[in-house]
């Protein structure tokens, strides 16, 4: 698709009239295109009157359900805030998008957080392995080119001066760091792994010294085969 053809998708994206694969293509473009970010913001604003007058009061029980669910789910807040922190990796991933595209304006209009984009991708594949504390799950999406790890319900914190580090393991047994699991990731139980899962045959977790290692220094304590 040419640059102009990509720009032309913006209005269709705003009314959700693109096919799923076109959405992926356009969002990749949107992250780096400030012109489309402006178009999406403007047109989203212009659509507001179309739902004016459609108001219907939802049933009272729904309010209770929403607030009850909110009370038990994490918010994605910047790392310096202490309350109800979500994985720092989410914030880091968002920051990476800003640095890469310079278009935080676009990110606001993307449909999901990076983690949710992976988990809810059309081609999302779920891989899991049993552990003492429950299932360790890795969700990969080739279209998103990312993987998300979901930790078991019971996760022992690493010892002092130690961290858990994730690795993409290649066919030849080579290890590529997929990032250190922060304390916040451990609490939130979910994290976007660093880098692409392409070519990886498994995701492994090891115990490493604080700050992480460039190559694993110990045998993995958990391995999730991919595929």
């Amino acid at each position: 698709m040419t640059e102009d053809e990509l720009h032309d998708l913006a209005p269709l994206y705003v009314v959700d009239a693109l096919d799923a694969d076109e959405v992926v293509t356009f969002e990749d473009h949107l992250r780096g295109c400030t012109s489309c970010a402006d178009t999406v913001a403007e047109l989203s604003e212009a659509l507001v009157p179309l739902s004016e007058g459609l108001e219907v009061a939802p049933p009272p029980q729904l309010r209770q359900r929403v607030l009850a669910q909110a009370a038990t789910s994490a918010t994605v807040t910047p790392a310096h805030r202490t309350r109800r922190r979500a994985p720092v990796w989410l914030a880091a991933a968002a920051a990476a998008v800003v640095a890469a595209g310079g278009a935080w304006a676009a990110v606001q209009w993307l449909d999901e957080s990076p983690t949710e984009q992976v988990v809810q991708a059309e081609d999302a594949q779920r891989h899991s392995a049993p552990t003492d504390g429950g299932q360790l799950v890795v969700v990969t999406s080739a279209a998103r080119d990312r993987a998300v790890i979901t930790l078991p319900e019971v996760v022992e914190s690493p010892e002092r001066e130690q961290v858990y580090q994730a690795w993409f393991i290649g066919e030849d047994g080579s290890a590529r760091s997929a990032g250190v699991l922060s304390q916040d990731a451990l609490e939130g139980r979910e994290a976007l792994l660093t880098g692409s899962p392409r070519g990886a045959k498994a995701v492994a977790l090891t115990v490493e010294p604080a700050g992480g290692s460039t190559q694993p220094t110990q045998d993995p304590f958990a391995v999730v085969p991919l595929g």
Partner: protein
Amino acid sequence: MSKGELAGEQGPTAGSPAAELASLLRAVGRGEESALATLYDLTSPRVFGLALRIVRDRGIAEEVVQEVYIQVWRQAAGFDPARGSALAWLLTLTHRRAVDRVRSEQSQTDRLHRYELLERGQHHSSAEEEGQARIDAAALRAALDMIGEPHRTAVALAYLEGLTHREVADHESIPLGTAKTRIRDGLSKLRDRMRGGDQR
């Protein structure tokens, strides 16, 4: 348009409803549950109404509302009022969720058929729906009528029925390129109208 201009033109005036929603969203972003409750009270009829208009099923529309506010709860910290209004953001999330549900649960034929019935005013299965359809006919049609045909139908099929641009082309028996152009031009007209002084 530069970021500065966007903020200057559309940044909410202090004390306005838009500013109130924006500051509520910021509080939600700080994890304040009471702010989420207030935001819900102020906006849920609009969110539920749009979801219901698209999915036409109270149960599914309720699920959409729940998903939207949980997403808001989780992501409000990333919201920047200088880059768009809180209401536009909420409605964007709502529309996406509702359209996803419609696409996964209703066949294209059903949706097209439904649109035809609506246009002829025959889709009234309950008193409530009938009342709602009358409201559609007033405020909504006023907004849509600003667009003018043939763009009006293309925008309505996409935005209110959740059709893809391919489905719009099929429905209208027009080439795909024409369907895209009609949606694009329809939205441009809507935007120009808003800029032209219809803003409050």
